[in-house]
């Protein structure tokens, strides 16, 4: 028996973090160790799954042995695999970071919740069943809400409350859509639905409901109102998880449904999404520029970056989808580094007022470097993952002839430059430290830098990653 090719890595990816959560819950004193072990084992499993899929092609796994439509299927193609990989990479980094960030009293709550969130993310990316996706969405939502509330401050609790209500509302819209689709076609399997779906009132209603519900969770302008508070008041590693992965998970579902289930003719809707995306870019960018707190700035930057993802809808080309998916991966990595950096600054100085950053920035050169590198990727400057994404997106825009999106894309890049350099500029001014700071653990600084360097390195991995994306042709068949 070949260990790599015969093991059910797909299931391991769901079970390992779940067992990790239970273990952290049962033996909370050892939660940090158990969590780190789990994190590494999940990463190894993802690597193994990648090798397996590269060898054997896309993978459909019938849980319970029944297979669709009766049972639930899991499905691995380029899209889900890359989501799993980026989750594992971010997950390991966050785990290392968190192992130094939390005090024991918080850590014993944090670790089981985080492991649950990881299990939810992995199961979400793997699911090929729209009802099962609902369950994973709820699993993810509840874990995320609990994590936001972890810091216990009044603002964090209020943000968590709002987030929970929005999350539940979004799920119910989604579930109503699932109900309609099931009763129209007698299946909840994405592949089977894709074969049967045709334009009908029920399908249109389902599209309306599911898209609305998911947009709420993705926080696309103007439904973004809950995000800045939730993402900025959470503990730093949680902010990173939310911005990097959780909003992306909802987007992933939307992408899957859009590509496979929803008929291709909703031109008006795709333009509307593109328009909302463009508004998100401009609005989020301007808001970010005017923030006085670093974490809020980064949170609005997420609002903005989400907007970019929707520029691919009106373009409706393979290269456009690839571009935004590359952007999604780059943003996940860069945003993780950025929130970690903000966490270090907060940890050190006790606050994250941008105007006072000059007192902190000079003492944390590694953190500031990481922030700068992540910023380069967000701006889309070379060499970075963000640049590759911007290049591809620009190519898709020009090929489609819809040149007006290019203006938005460029304006967005400049806005990003403005708010990133607003922060960086403080690194060069001289100021005294007014009070005794709290030393940032070395581990937290270095893992931040490592992730930031990775965000740059993504600029050199495009041939490999784009090839992985083609696995199973999730965006349709390439012509070449």
């Amino acid at each position, binding site marked *: 028996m070949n260990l790599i090719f015969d093991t059910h890595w797909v299931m391991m990816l769901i079970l390992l973090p779940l067992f990790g959560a239970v273990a952290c819950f049962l033996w909370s004193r050892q939660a940090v160790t158990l969590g780190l072990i789990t994190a590494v084992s999940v990463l190894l499993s993802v690597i193994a799954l990648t090798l397996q899929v590269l060898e054997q092609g896309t993978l459909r796994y019938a849980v319970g042995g029944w297979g669709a439509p009766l049972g639930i299927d899991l499905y691995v193609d380029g899209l889900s695999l890359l989501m799993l990989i980026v989750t594992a990479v971010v997950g390991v980094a966050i785990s290392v970071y968190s192992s130094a960030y939390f005090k024991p009293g918080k850590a014993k709550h944090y670790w089981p919740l985080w492991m649950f969130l990881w299990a939810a993310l992995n199961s979400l990316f793997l699911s090929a069943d729209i009802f099962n996706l609902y369950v994973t969405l709820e699993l993810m939502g509840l874990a995320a809400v609990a994590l936001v509330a972890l810091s216990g401050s009044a603002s964090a609790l209020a943000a968590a409350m709002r987030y929970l209500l929005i999350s539940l509302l979004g799920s119910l819209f989604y579930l109503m859509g699932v109900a309609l689709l099931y009763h129209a076609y007698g299946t909840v399997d994405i592949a089977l639905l894709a074969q049967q779906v045709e334009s009908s009132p029920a399908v249109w209603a389902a599209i309306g409901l599911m898209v609305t519900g998911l947009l709420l969770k993705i926080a696309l302008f103007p439904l973004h109102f809950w995000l800045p508070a939730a993402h900025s008041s959470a503990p730093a590693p949680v902010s990173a998880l939310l911005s990097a992965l959780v909003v992306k998970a909802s987007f992933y579902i939307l992408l899957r449904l859009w590509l496979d289930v929803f008929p291709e003719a909703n031109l008006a809707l795709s333009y509307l999404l593109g328009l909302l995306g463009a508004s998100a870019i401009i609005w989020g960018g301007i808001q970010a520029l005017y923030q006085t707190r670093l974490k809020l700035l980064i949170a609005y930057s997420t609002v903005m970056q989400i907007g970019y993802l929707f520029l691919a809808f009106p373009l409706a080309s393979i290269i456009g989808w690839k571009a935004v998916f590359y952007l999604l991966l780059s943003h996940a990595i860069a945003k993780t580094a950025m929130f970690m950096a903000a966490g270090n600054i907060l940890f050190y100085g006790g606050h994250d007022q941008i105007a006072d950053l000059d007192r902190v920035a000079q003492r944390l050169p590694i953190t500031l470097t990481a922030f700068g590198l992540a910023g380069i990727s967000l701006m889309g400057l070379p060499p970075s993952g963000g640049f590759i994404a911007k290049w591809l997106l620009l190519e898709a825009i*020009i090929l489609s002839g819809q040149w007006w999106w290019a203006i938005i894309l*460029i304006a967005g890049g400049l806005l990003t430059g403005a708010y990133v350099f607003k922060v960086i500029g403080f690194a060069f001014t001289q100021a005294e430290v007014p009070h005794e700071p709290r030393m940032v653990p070395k581990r937290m600084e270095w893992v931040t830098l490592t992730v930031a360097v990775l965000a740059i390195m993504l600029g050199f991995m495009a041939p490999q990653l784009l090839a992985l994306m083609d696995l199973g042709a999730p965006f349709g068949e390439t012509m070449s």
Partner: protein
Amino acid sequence: MNWAFWLPLLIVLSSLLAALVIFILPEEKTKTRIGLNIGAALLKIVLVAIMLWGVHSGYQFETRLPLLPGLELVLRADTLAMLFVALSAGLWLLTTVYAIGYLEDSPHRSRFFGFFGLCVTATVGVALAGNLITFLLFYELLTLATYPLIIHRGTEAARKAGRTYLIYTLAGGALLLIGTVWLYTLTGTLEFTARGFLSTLDSMHHPALIIIFVLLITGLGVKAALFPLHGWLPQAMVAPAPVSALLHAVAVVKAGAFGIIRVIYDVFGIEFSASLGVTLPLAIVASVTIIYASVRALFQDDLKRRLAFSTVSQVSYITLGVAIVGPLATIGGIVHLVHQGVMKITLFFCAGNLAETLGIHKVSEMSGVGRRMPWTMAAFTIGAFGMIGAPPLAGFISKWYLGLGALQAGQDWVIFVLAGSTLLNAAYFLPILYAAWFGKSTGSWPNERNIGRYETSLALLIPPVITAILAVLLGLLASVPFSPLEWTRLITSLEYTP
């Protein structure tokens, strides 16, 4: 080991790796840092010398790494690249020596020299870039690497200058990006090719090509400080003197000018550009820049600002030269890339010496300074006469070819531009020289410090003296093999259909 593949990469990496090590070096390890700086600069010169010899002997050096499907990161040593690489490598060594002397005892030296190294890496990358996307990559890296140098001092003025610089360069970079991607969607290739790769394109695309040309040239014009995109340059004068020297003579403005050369000759092709009708407007813009900036320079009392406007004016000679369609003008433009660099760096070194030693920042404070600092002012004088275009200095050679080229191409009006600019150059340089040598010294200087046994420390004195001598030699020995002029003739011979 495959030299043809590794050599271009090594030339880029030599300063990159040094920079990265310097970043993590503790502030107090001065000796190690100096060793690394000088060592890397020397290594680069040796590598460049090997490559220069190789290219001359007909070897092909090329590094290719995959970047995107269908697009590669290409570093290639063609003749034009070698001209710029040799200039950067040589002047980097001198500037490094100068900067070490200049920044003695000041804080944040690790940070400074780290970005300094990155800056040179980016410049060399720009020079060696074998296609437009590689060029773009290093061009943007250059923006990022120079920003921290400009705001190095951390004052409010420095931050403001940094902001202005970013607004200009990031916007310019964005235009360049759009133009590049658009071009790629039309042609499917971005590879620099002698005489361009666009002339075979269907004529229905010609309107698009004109827009692309404007996008690319505007994007590059920001760094090349073409009027009206030059606003950032005088502001950036708040940076330390070695940075100004680097910015003006080697890195930033030259990257812009070099990019314009590349786009006109190796993307569009000069003859195709002319047939699109885009060269004449560019020549006019360059001429306006030359005259306008010279006039502005006249009214600057701040020495470095006067030199900055002079740069704006002089760099446009390069653009003017390449925009006049004709081999002789091309020679004048391209060779000025080197000549202006050597002369301008001399002037900035000298200005830095005056500021560092005597606290002189203004032209009006320079009265009689020639007796206090004879070596510095001698070098300054050579640089200034070079700029004016007095024979037998390097600047004369450039102007001579530009003028001949304009006549050859039938663009007689250019002669008036050259003449006017020469007069203006004289008008803003000669009073300085007169005051320095013949003016009466008041006896006290704004902020005099005694550095070293000579008029100032050797590290500050030797670089300008060397570059001044170079400026003389480049003029005197212009026809010797391997001289920039001869090398430029070689470049030009490839760009025109025989």
